[in-house]
């Protein structure tokens, strides 16, 4: 909500500025996206292009007390030489894309760990893009609850 004072300030600055304000605010927002849109943007693929594989593993809590800090560890039993990049997506986020990790043979193995934000209970996906174009994927649901005394 825009505070009263801001509203007044903007108003006295002229109606034009006020008319433009929503557009300006809007531009700093990342646009809401669906998972399909995010997959298309970052991988040029659709959900059906993903190959579910038990070679890819996600280590993450089943229940997270705070959606602001969910530890996620991705690893995969494939030679790192054959891997181009590793992706993390969270279905229920405003923008499901979380991160892209470009790996090289110097990494020794396919591994990445970080902490991510989840807007709400969501499926988290790890996708490994192989050099031959195959997309190996796995997913895990993480329940986000209220932490502390509430």
């Amino acid at each position, binding site marked *: 909500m825009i505070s009263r004072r801001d509203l*007044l300030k903007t*108003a*006295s600055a002229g*109606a034009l500025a006020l008319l433009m304000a929503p557009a300006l605010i809007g531009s700093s927002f990342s646009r809401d996206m669906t998972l399909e849109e995010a997959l298309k943007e970052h991988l040029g693929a659709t959900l059906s292009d993903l190959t579910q594989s038990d070679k890819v593993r996600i280590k993450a809590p089943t229940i997270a007390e705070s959606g602001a800090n969910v530890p996620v560890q991705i690893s995969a039993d494939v030679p790192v030489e054959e891997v181009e990049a590793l992706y993390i997506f969270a279905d229920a986020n405003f923008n499901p894309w979380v991160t892209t990790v470009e790996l090289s043979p110097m990494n020794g193995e396919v591994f990445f760990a970080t902490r991510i934000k989840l807007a709400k209970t969501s499926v988290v996906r790890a996708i490994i893009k192989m050099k031959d174009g195959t997309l190996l994927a796995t997913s895990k649901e993480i329940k986000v609850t209220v932490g502390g*005394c*509430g």
Partner: protein
Amino acid sequence: MKKTVIYGASFTAFILIACQPTAQKAAVSEKKEEEKKIQVKKEKKKNLAERFKIALANQDKWQKACSNPDQIVPKGIDVETFRKEMMATVKFPEGGVIGKDIKRGEKLFGDPDKGGRSRRGNCYACHCGDPRILACGNIGPSLRGYAKRGIDPKDTYIRIYNSWAIVPCSVMPRLGYHGVLTPEEIADIVAYMHDPESPLNK
């Protein structure tokens, strides 16, 4: 009231740029109000120690009685008298102990849209109930299927209004006694808890 006036003023300014004076007048009064607010804030900050001291001294005689390492009614104080004294503080709402606004009752109990959060009621901090709320405490008993237990809604009301009328020195806050919740709000919570259709009982 004032809010409406100011909003109205800014709305006029929004439509007509010529309305500048109106906006300015409003801005001046706004500024004064703001200054007043800052003054009050400063006062509050300055007296923080004083205010805290008063707040601690506000401890009532029953709280004082419970302030022992076991947090129970100490020897020398009759539990029955304690209960009676607490019972005498319970005020009932005009429309009876079962309120009408079940939705409001649910929100006060713990808003399911916010994971069971509710600042004033905050029942899920200590109790479980609605199976959708995963983050629920186990300090108090689970309230799942509460309506099926044959408890008199009046007792439920008293428990929420002043739990010490039933269990003296209990950890459950005396929500009605202190005015954290109004009698009408408590009645709505009772309605939510005793409604066979509520997620607590389904």
